């Protein structure tokens, strides 16, 4: 799957395109792993072009939560479609401190990183 990566001022934006299923989420996993290993724990994932997320896709975010938290990082997901937002919220992921899930209207991401 195609994942664009843009280095912002205080964080890195990842923009995956397409379905985040068992196969494609492996690529996202590799990207995030590289960032976390390099100590870049301020990560923004742009969901505007993600159409579907499977449990394997969710697993990618879940597996880095502890590590990002321990390094004082932040994971911000933005522009989720209603369906995908539901998937995250049903699982309870919207209740976590280090994982911020923004509703489609909220496009201003930078503020969540600047605070830290």
């Amino acid at each position, binding site marked *: 799957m195609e994942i664009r990566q843009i280095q912002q001022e205080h964080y890195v934006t990842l923009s995956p395109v397409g379905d985040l299923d*068992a196969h494609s989420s492996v690529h996202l*996993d590799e990207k995030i792993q590289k960032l976390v290993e390099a100590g870049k724990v301020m990560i923004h994932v742009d969901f505007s072009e993600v159409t579907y997320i499977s*449990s*394997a896709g*969710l*697993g*990618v975010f*879940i*597996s880095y*939560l*502890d590590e990002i*938290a321990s390094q004082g990082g932040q994971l911000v997901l933005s522009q989720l479609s209603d*369906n995908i937002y539901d998937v995250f919220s*049903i*699982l*309870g*992921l919207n*209740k*976590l401190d280090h994982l911020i899930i923004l509703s489609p209207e909220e496009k201003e991401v930078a503020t969540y990183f600047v605070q830290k």
Partner: protein
Amino acid sequence: MRPRVINGLLLAIVILLWLLLLGFHLMQQMVSVLRTDQPLIIGSLYYRASLVAFWLSSLMLAGRLLGNIEKLHISGLLWRLFMTGMVGVSLILVSTFVNRMMSNPIKGYLSAFFFCLALAAVVAYFLSALFIFRRLIFYPRTRRKITTWQFFTAVLLVGMVYPVYGSEYWERITYVPLVLVSLLLCSHVRWVSYLNFNQKLRALGLLSLNILVMITYLVAEQLLPQQLGIRIDDSVFEVGFLTYVVIFSMVYSIFSVLVLFFNLPTSSVFERESLEIASFEKINQAIQANLDFTEILRTLLDACLLTANARAGWIELTPVEGMADPEIKIRSRISGSDVAELRESYNLTQKVLNEQKFYLVRHMGKHKSFRNQRTRFRTLLCVPVYSNSTAYGAVFIVSDLVNAFEEVTIKSVSSYAEQAGIALENARLIKSNIELERYQEQLKIAKEVQTQLLPRQLPGDRQIEMFARSENADEVGGDYFDAIKTPDGRYRVAIGDVSGKGTTAAFYMAEVKGVFHALAALDLDPHTFVATANQAMSECMQKGAFVTLTYLEINPALKQVAMIRAGHCPGYFYCAANQSLRSLREGTLGLGILRSGNYRSMMPAPTLVSYRPGDVLVLFTDGIVEARDEAANEFGYERIEAMIRDHARGSAGEIADAIVNSAKLFTRSKLQDDYTVLVIRFT
């Protein structure tokens, strides 16, 4: 009678008749000593009749002994024939020698004895020749040849009567058909073409020797009576059966010798052809039976080297999935380092595989890639080995001569490579099939085991009716549901879904069951129950894996349900009194997501639901919610709600069936994900 007895009888008759003939000769000798002008006994009708009987019985005996030679071993047969002839020839030589040494009184009797011995030897020799040549002519046997031979036998038999009723008229009548049929039989020399060069040479030599024996006999026939001083009527031996056999044997031998001689130069071509056919057959056999890649490739290389008369060769393989070892090294008469050097100059394997066509370097010294190589080879042929679906590699053969491989050779090598490609493909498919079958067998077992992990029947009583329907997308899956009744009449119920599906999910599902049963026995409050379950699952699951779970404790005494939804898709509570449907959305994180200690503190208080008879609690996994139709629309919560409303008055089983069936109808096929529907109906 048994064949052996018949043969023995025939032999006895032959010997008796021979003794009779000997008797005639001795009598003749006796008479001629007394009176020289006595008419010849040897020419008498009795003598002639005995002679014919001797021939006939000898013919029958020879036919029985040599008529059914099953396996044709040409040089062996001809050698035996020659040895038989040599016995006769030496007998004749000895007899003439002894005859000269002897003094008169015994001499006559001894001569008669020797003459009869020579006669027996000649008969034995030519009758053997007759049947051995018959075997050669019948190679292979055809109806027409048999008919011709029968005609020939008839002529021989007619010739046999000649000495008895002999006349020149007979002679003329029988000679013409005899010569014609002999010539016809002489044209049957097919056996020659099946011999290789050496065998032909041997046959040629042996036949020539036999011709010499025959000539010796012919000369002896003329000289012997004179030498031995035996007076015989010429008409006895000159024409008739024995002469016919001699003529036929001579003609056939000479004809065969000529055919052999002229076939000698071409035999190498036939040998090559038959070698190629043999190689082809070998590869074919490899295709049918062989599963060993190395052996197939080895056969291929050997066949190519043999056919092309190549100096050396090797096979290069591309890595192919399912092959035992992609690094199989197969080479013949060339060192690995030489192969590597040539390979370095020009990597042909990929090129021929891409083009699916052979590549020939006629003169490596002039080829741009090999020009600078210090190789002893001059010609190189590279042929791809591939099947419809897979490129396996290429076979290389080299020769130290320039332009050593002709078109025919290349064609043969290409067809071997093609056959080998099919063989490899077959072997690969069979191998992977066997493996697949083994996996399927294992999965079947896993499915059985997993089915036993889920409760066959859920507990219940007059006030609580529980029913669940569950199915996996693959053989095994990650959905879990269970319910137990505590001794004090409460129910602990769980429905869960492990992330992912298939085998990994199935293992974690078994883990969830273990955790559920362990904790359910401990009488924990729902809060502690879920928090402990989270901790237990966090410890055993790999990073990124999680379980969603809805846990409830039903207290029939209070008519109350306490529920914690841990990331699981929210279920519904249907209230019969006001026909309302409530989505139970309150909840916390799925198990295994937050592995540090904060999980419990983030948990909200359990959702409490009071029920009355007629109320229904419906729980399910996301396999139902996310069931998709062809246009990728989700079945979704609204349709589930509608099904609950429509069937709320039915039994728990009816409600569960209604939801599952409507989801299946919606997708128009089997569901893509594991699904479970658990319905609790209060009565």
